[in-house]
């Protein structure tokens, strides 16, 4: 029996490491780990300060009292942001019955240095200039403190030297009290997102 002990010890070590790394075998992806680290739903959304397309500084708390579909993106994003935006555009059309004072779409750029107010205003016009859709950029640069603040929300961000920003592409649904109540992974189709939001609105 003692011959098997070293192998058992090695396996136990790996299982312990993998269990810790995956939050108890619940989160295997970077997205999943960020959400698991932020805590179970519903949870209060951490404070977020951003500058909207007209150049005004505002906070997430300002939009309490209505549901908010919050997404993070940046205008130079090579792939997933465009797919997520397309999905949200589809959802916006399907949820046209919900007025802006009940449901707000909020897209926040993670690249405040490059995505200035002019570029964001152009993006907002491209989205159809909808009253129920606010576009903005982080009020602070994407430094360690900002990354840590975003992590409290369940958003991971990583910027490489070339300027590419890898980030969580999930959409967060905040209820009127300012709690994150649902998170939609980027692969969730618009129809499922719309159905979930309708359930909440009703």
């Amino acid at each position: 029996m003692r011959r098997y002990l070293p192998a058992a010890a090695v396996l136990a070590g790996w299982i312990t490491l993998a269990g810790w790394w995956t939050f108890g075998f619940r989160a295997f992806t970077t997205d999943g780990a960020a959400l698991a680290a932020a805590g179970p739903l519903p949870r209060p959304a951490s404070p977020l300060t951003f500058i909207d397309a007209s150049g005004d500084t505002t906070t997430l708390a300002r939009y309490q009292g209505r549901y908010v579909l919050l997404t993070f993106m940046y205008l130079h994003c090579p792939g997933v942001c465009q797919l997520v935006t397309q999905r949200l555009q589809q959802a916006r059309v399907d949820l046209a019955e919900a007025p802006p004072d009940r449901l707000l779409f909020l897209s926040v750029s993670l690249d405040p240095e490059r995505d200035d107010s002019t570029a964001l205003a152009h993006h907002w016009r491209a989205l159809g200039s909808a009253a129920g859709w606010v576009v903005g950029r982080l009020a602070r640069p994407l430094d360690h403190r900002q990354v840590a603040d975003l992590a409290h929300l369940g958003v991971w961000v990583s910027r490489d030297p070339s300027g590419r920003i890898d980030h969580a592409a999930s959409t967060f649904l905040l209820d009127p009290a300012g709690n994150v109540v649902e998170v939609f992974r980027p692969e969730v189709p618009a129809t499922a997102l719309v159905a979930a939001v309708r359930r909440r609105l009703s």
Partner: protein
Amino acid sequence: MIRRAAAIAAACLLALPPADVFLDATMERRLLIQIPAILVLGALAGWPAGAAHRPWRSGDLAALAFAVGAMLFWMIPRSLDLAARSHLVDKALHLSVFAVGLALARSLPYLSLAIPMTLGVQATAMLMALGIVYLHYPGLICTAYTLEQQRVVGAGLVRATPVAWVLLWSWALHRLAVSRPAA
């Protein structure tokens, strides 16, 4: 001795710039070329020179447990993401994969054929399953790469699995052919 030195030198070439920069740049280069190559080079460096005729030791089983655990850890998408974003973790990945090759070479020849075959069949089945998931899952699994690269890796793994299957059974038949009949 020459084989061992050549395997170590080749692994270093793959794990250091400029080859490392090129191979790390896309998911398919990393997962379909760099990691398998370093694994095979580790096995080449550690494979016993002569025929393997000695009873198994507890260290052989521990080495196999290390190899299985390390490969499972690096199959976690979050681990691969971290390796893609941190040079330090990237080096840990290279070193541990080489060590996995060494550990397999130091354990498989001495263990009962049933053990490596069971693990081998499981591993090839997992490769195929992973390939199918990468190929058809609509979202990004490893966020450091793109969806297109993920699909290429999926297709590559699906195609590589039958090759791995043939290699596994060829090795098993070879080992059966050269093993001495029980006394």
